[in-house]
């Protein structure tokens, strides 16, 4: 996991998340916000699913498994 930085959210948003943590299947506001933002950033192409090292390792494993050559 990368290093963390603090950001500010409006009281309204934080309260809304806190009030629905069970429905949102999250243990905390931070956990939910991090997951939602990561998903959104990946979908928009602004955050890679894999680091270059991870992608090389996954490619190696996929070759090992026979999916790629």
């Amino acid at each position, binding site marked *: *996991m990368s290093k963390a930085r603090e950001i500010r959210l409006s009281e309204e948003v934080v309260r809304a998340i806190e009030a629905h943590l069970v*429905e*949102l*299947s*999250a*243990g*905390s506001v931070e*956990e*939910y916000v*991090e*997951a*939602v933002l*990561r*998903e959104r950033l*990946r*979908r928009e192409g602004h955050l890679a*699913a*894999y680091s270059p090292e*991870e*992608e090389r*390792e*996954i*490619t190696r*494993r*996929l*070759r*090992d*498994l*026979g*999916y*790629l*050559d």
Partner: protein
Amino acid sequence: MRKLALIGLDCADPVLLAELLPGLPTLRELAASGSFARLRSVDPPITIPAWMCMMTGKDPGELGVYGFRNRKDTSYAGLGVASSASFSAPAVWDLLGERGLRSILIGVPGTYPPKPVKGLLVSCFLAPSTEVAFTYPATLREKVKALAGEYLFDAREFRTEDKARLVEEVVAMTKRRFALVRGLVSTEPWDFLAAVEIGPDRMHHAFFAHHDPRHPKHDPASPFRDALREYYQLLDQEIAALLSDLPSRTRVLVVSDHGVQRLEGGIALNEWLIRAGYLALKADSLEPGTRLGDLVREGLVDWSRTIAWGEGGYYGRIFLNVAGREPEGAIPSSECEIVRTKLARELAAIPDEEGRPIGTRVLFPEEIYREVRGIAPDLLVYFGDLRFRSIGTVGWGRIHLRENDTGPDDANHAPYGILIDYPSEQKGGDRSILEVKDLILAHFDKEAS
């Protein structure tokens, strides 16, 4: 609300399962009391994209995902590994979540990195390790560790001649996965469960020759001749234990993404393209097993004289070098269809070593998909209807290979997987993998009405 549990067995094959069912009391009972159908996979019948096609009801063209690696752009080296971010269509659990229903998702291929869901998600074997965020919510990882110990996404160092170690590893992986599934369904709220075990696929590729007497490499004296059968018995026991943890009226689907068939050899796709004048290299002497991708990166492909190149794997993908599309396209777009049709005909006619036809199928994306998104291959090639692997590496000096270029492999994929539906009024027949999403939604619609 009656729950629905989908148990995924990657690569479970209808013919193989029917052969093994007498020794599998749990699956036999589910199939006999419910229904047991062949489930037609997508083209290509490969884990990625097939599982996500099942879960979204979309074909690979609609998803724009044609395999584990896809062209990100029209450059020659722009291949990227598919991830959950590659699948923008809502999965069945997203639609159930909108209805207020909770899902537990474990090991469904195409779910790494984990997306937020209404429920719990433990992602698949495409997770780099358990050191990364592989669950939703992220804190679920602690519970995974508590329930399954060191969680194994997949068998490590799969291409091995150390078969005893591989069996141990797959068995350990399967036991831990089922321990996790049982632990979560017993302690967490849920309506829909989807848990996929990758073990059958790994066992098929490693042990199909040991099991199948018709396999060219079969040795009746092999100490591993019963490894596959015994592994299915383990699966049957694990499924029985899981069912005992589920509420008695739970609907159970046992499904697979594709089937299995014996692998009889390989066709060196790019070697053939070179010989047939479609692919030109700037290097004369190459080591056997040289990857074309490496030659592309080293500038050793003569694109000015290249009409097409291929990607290998369990099936072949052909890309044409089209002017105005590829950076150094050599085929005028006006001639593209003529070239593609001629190439398809010639690929389909490649014989075996003795000159006999092998029944190769060449597929045109626009003919098999409802829509073609992203950058699709121009042709999909099933050598010998997938009895032969597509070898993408070069330097072999011949077209026909007996062995896989990535290590020992006994099996290739087959187009039909399985669908056991319990309880079910319907009997037998063939179903499509693209129907499963609606089958699940219809179950919950009926329960809600």
